[in-house]
């Protein structure tokens, strides 16, 4: 077995040193009735790399990669171009095969890159501090609500109807089991929901999304003021981190916490995971934050270095009083994010965001020219919603047969809501070509 270096002679020598006759004797504490004498019957035996590669490649071949044709899918996961450098660097064994940096003297690489990550996330969200990542945007959102509950000592969260429904559901699951209340608005494809009136003295936080799930862009400055007046926190969710290269950041609008999805930078779609949760907040709440934090300090020789810090918030010390039970986060995905954003830099990130927006504006213009198709958005970043003269999900299946991934039907996200069946969400990125757009428009003109 290519991964197991002990030889039979080694095993015999080690057993002799221990003073037992067989490995089975080492399992003497397991109840005899439960100990299997050999490999579990009915399961296949070991295979070489070639055979495993063949088996998994066969599964991969039964899928249609998003890049195999025009792709207009968004809805919380976006197909961006990731520079080759990113994947090369994150596969360096020193990054890939190290663990959480518990021994800082030999983990400065991970620690410094996470410190850079924290800084980047704080800068782009416009907030003071960010943690070293969460599992994904939806869990970051749920944790943000838990944190707001701790800060305000209130237990009722108001969720915007246009919050991504997976984020809503993830938060609602946690609410159900941890005993706080969630009030979720109804989705509004026109993006005209107002939440100011739903805030009262019992509200711990209001959770909104920008751009929202239908793509509308909001100025949350008045909502932030309304929250402050009632002692509630404003949590802003960002599912397309690329938008922060162009739009006024949530921090500048008065957000107290930003919970975001960072997949768009550095990370492949990977059928929905692993992705990357972003979490940023105002300085004064730092000790209520979940997750790991890297801080700057100096070593015994006075040289600058980095350590995990404020760990008394965490489960391994606070146990039942911890701010969260999270331990592993999304380290390597955070590194990919950091490298990609470092490659882009200020000019690249803002330029790429503008390019994404311009592509979507271009597509919206072309679609608006098709009879029966109506763009619902007045504003959007790289994703918007159209109303079709027929059911979107059937249309999308037909487009897929033509090799076009033609957007996300709103019913896929909101299967329980009324009035969604003819709505389609369409996203563009820098990967979208004008030829892709024309192919989509031609197919739509034929199918509608």
């Amino acid at each position, binding site marked *: 077995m290519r991964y197991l270096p002990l030889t039979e002679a080694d095993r015999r020598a080690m057993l002799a040193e221990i003073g037992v006759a067989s490995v089975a004797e080492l399992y003497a504490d397991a109840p005899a009735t439960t100990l299997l004498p050999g490999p579990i019957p009915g399961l296949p035996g070991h295979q070489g790399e070639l055979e495993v590669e063949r088996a998994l490649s066969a599964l991969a071949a039964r899928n249609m990669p998003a890049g195999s044709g025009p792709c207009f899918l968004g809805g919380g996961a976006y197909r961006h171009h990731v520079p080759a450098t990113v994947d090369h660097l994150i596969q360096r064994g020193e990054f890939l095969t190290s663990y959480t940096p518990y021994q800082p003297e030999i983990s400065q690489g991970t620690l410094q890159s996470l410190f850079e990550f924290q800084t980047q996330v704080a800068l782009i969200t416009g907030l003071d501090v960010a943690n070293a990542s969460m599992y994904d945007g939806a869990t970051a959102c749920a944790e943000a609500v838990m944190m707001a509950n701790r800060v305000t000592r209130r237990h009722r969260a108001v969720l915007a109807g246009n919050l991504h429904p997976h984020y809503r559901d993830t938060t609602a699951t946690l609410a159900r089991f941890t005993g706080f209340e969630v009030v979720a608005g109804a989705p509004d494809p026109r993006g005209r929901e107002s939440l100011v009136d739903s805030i009262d003295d019992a509200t711990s936080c209001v959770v909104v999304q920008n751009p929202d799930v239908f793509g509308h862009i909001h100025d949350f400055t008045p909502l932030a003021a309304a929250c402050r007046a009632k002692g509630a926190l404003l949590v802003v969710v960002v599912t397309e981190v690329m938008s922060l290269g162009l739009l006024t950041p949530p921090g500048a609008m008065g957000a107290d916490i930003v919970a975001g999805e960072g997949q768009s930078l550095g990370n492949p779609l990977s059928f929905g995971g692993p992705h990357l949760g972003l979490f940023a907040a105002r300085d004064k709440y730092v000790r209520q934050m979940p997750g790991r934090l890297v801080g700057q300090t100096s070593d015994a020789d006075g040289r600058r270095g980095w350590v995990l810090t404020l760990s008394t918030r965490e489960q391994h*010390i606070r146990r039942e009083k911890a701010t969260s039970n999270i331990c592993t986060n999304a380290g390597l995905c955070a590194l990919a994010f950091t490298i990609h954003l470092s490659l882009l830099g200020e000019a690249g990130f803002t330029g790429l965001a503008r390019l994404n927006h311009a592509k979507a504006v271009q597509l919206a213009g072309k679609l608006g020219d098709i009879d029966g198709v109506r763009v619902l958005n007045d504003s959007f970043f790289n994703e918007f919603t159209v109303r079709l003269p027929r059911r979107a999900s059937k249309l999308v299946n037909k487009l897929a047969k033509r090799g076009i991934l033609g957007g996300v039907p709103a019913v896929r996200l909101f299967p329980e809501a009324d009035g969604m069946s003819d709505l389609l969400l369409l996203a563009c990125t820098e990967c979208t070509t004008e030829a892709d757009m024309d192919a989509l428009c031609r197919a739509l003109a034929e199918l509608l």
Partner: protein
Amino acid sequence: MSLIKFTKDHEWIKVEGDVGTVGITNHAQHALGDIVFVELPEIGREVVQGSDTAVVESVKAASEVYAPVDGEVIAINGGLTEEPAQVNIDPQGNGWFFKLRLTNPTQLEALMDSDGYQSYLEGLA
């Protein structure tokens, strides 16, 4: 005249009139190591004996500070927020945490005096 009493959780309370000043003992600060953060209660909070009233943190440990007796928090040592090291330097002086207006002073009788606490510590060793 003032009176100092000790709890089994290593808090001290110094009583003057109906006001008790509370902190952690030298033994407690030594066991925790370098104190990096102190979380203090809000003024006006009513606490009962044994309830979590403050938190004291070192790099690798966090510990609750319990109210030694019932009372209302009437003052907190805000200086600890800026300089938590005071708890290490002067635990039974400048390192105090909060002051309580005692609502049930008879509870003091059951706490240990200085000699009693010393022998309690020896028993722990």
